[in-house]
């Protein structure tokens, strides 16, 4: 017994080190997999609050860019509104109209793009209706998917994250693939597993596919920068240049698909019956 106590006293620093290292490694390994329960994230009142007050200072530096983005978006929407051929007949009765998507606006208060797994922090949380697995976009294109939400803040898995896999397709032909990021340039992502029969051309537009219940179909992602066939010549691997400048994200829209539970229940039932 005495020897055991002596052992603990003699090696107490090493044991403490091993214990703390073990905890940190558990957290690290968890952070490398998608949506694992994480205790350490920036959607809590302390880090959210500090980021929020820092953003109060730094948001003035980006005001010009953000205003330009808003004007551009307004311009586009107005053009569409006034150029509709018969705007009266298209009036929608909102009382009976089946609303499929709900939009919430949020301000980005923290944005990373230098790591291999990048996250954003938003100033909007469960109080504003945010929860896990909602899509996040800007007026130009997609940004990511909500990971954790606390009462007032939420973290978003950026598309610049090695765990992010988003269903995307060619705008003109509906051939789809998976959007991934392999590190490096924050404006270039990879679209992999596109069928070799797809008519891929430089400069073509890539949009979100309709297969996921997170993003609506047809949200812009980027344009094809370069592409190559994989060695087996079955699939294309495409480099996509993003529409969004991921290094400067201001206000974002969070999309909730209101049919999501219904779609998932239905798919689950079908899968169970087989």
């Amino acid at each position, binding site marked *: 017994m005495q020897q055991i106590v002596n052992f603990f006293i003699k090696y*107490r*620093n*090493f044991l*403490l*080190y091993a214990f*703390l*290292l073990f*905890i*940190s*490694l*558990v*957290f*690290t*390994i*968890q*952070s*490398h997999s998608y949506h694992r329960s*994480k205790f*350490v*994230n*920036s959607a*809590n009142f*302390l*880090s959210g609050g*500090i*980021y929020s007050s*820092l953003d109060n200072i730094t948001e003035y530096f980006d005001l010009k860019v953000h205003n330009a983005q808003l004007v551009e978006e307004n311009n586009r929407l107005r053009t569409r509104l006034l150029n509709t051929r018969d705007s009266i007949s298209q009036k929608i009765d909102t009382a009976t109209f089946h609303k499929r998507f709900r939009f919430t606006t949020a301000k980005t208060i*923290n944005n*990373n*793009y*230098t*790591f*291999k*797994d990048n*996250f954003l*922090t938003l100033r909007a949380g469960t109080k504003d209706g945010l929860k896990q697995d909602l899509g996040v976009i800007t007026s130009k294109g997609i940004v990511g998917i909500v990971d954790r939400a606390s009462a007032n803040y939420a*973290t978003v898995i950026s598309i610049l994250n090695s765990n992010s896999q988003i269903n995307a397709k060619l705008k003109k032909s509906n051939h789809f693939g998976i959007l991934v990021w392999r*590190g490096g*340039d*924050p404006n270039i992502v990879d679209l992999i597993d596109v069928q070799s029969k797809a008519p891929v051309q430089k400069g073509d537009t890539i949009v979100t596919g309709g297969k996921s219940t997170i993003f609506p179909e047809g949200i812009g992602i980027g344009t094809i920068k370069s592409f190559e066939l994989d060695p087996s010549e079955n699939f294309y691997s495409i480099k996509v240049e993003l529409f969004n400048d991921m*290094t400067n994200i201001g206000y974002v829209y969070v999309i909730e698909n209101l049919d999501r539970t219904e779609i998932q229940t239905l798919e689950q039932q079908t899968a169970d019956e087989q």
Partner: protein
Amino acid sequence: MNNSVTQNILRFVFLVLVQIAIFNNINFLGYINPYPYVLFIILFPIGDNKALLLALSFLLGISIDMFCNSGGMHAASCVTIAYLRPWILQSIFGLAYEYNAVKVVKAAFGQRLLYTTILVFSHHLLLFFLESFNFSDIIYILKKTLFSGAFTVLLCIILITLFSVKRR
């Protein structure tokens, strides 16, 4: 004694705030960020309280992790260099360390530089390895360690010099 405790608490809070407010947003050449918050471990009083240093390093790392959403990478790297620190000190300062007579701030410039460099580079190497979590990215890890490490060492030396002038 009390003065030293207050000084270290202030240094802890100051370094964490400066790290998240300024140094995490530098993004020099796209991906190079310095991590001068390790200065807390470098400057921690050299004495017998190794367990306290380990616990505080963990706390320091996990606070940075919380802001960076990086799991426990910073915590693991910080705890490791805090654990290795006594051996590094001994090999650099030799006899002076054994008599508890070492003050990093007052040491010769060469020794101080060597000590800072070894701690910073071991921290960064482990940090970037845990970040990419993949041996096949070894070139990327080494490149990032080299550039970020050089940046951090430079900042650490500047900060030590700046803050030691006042105390004289």
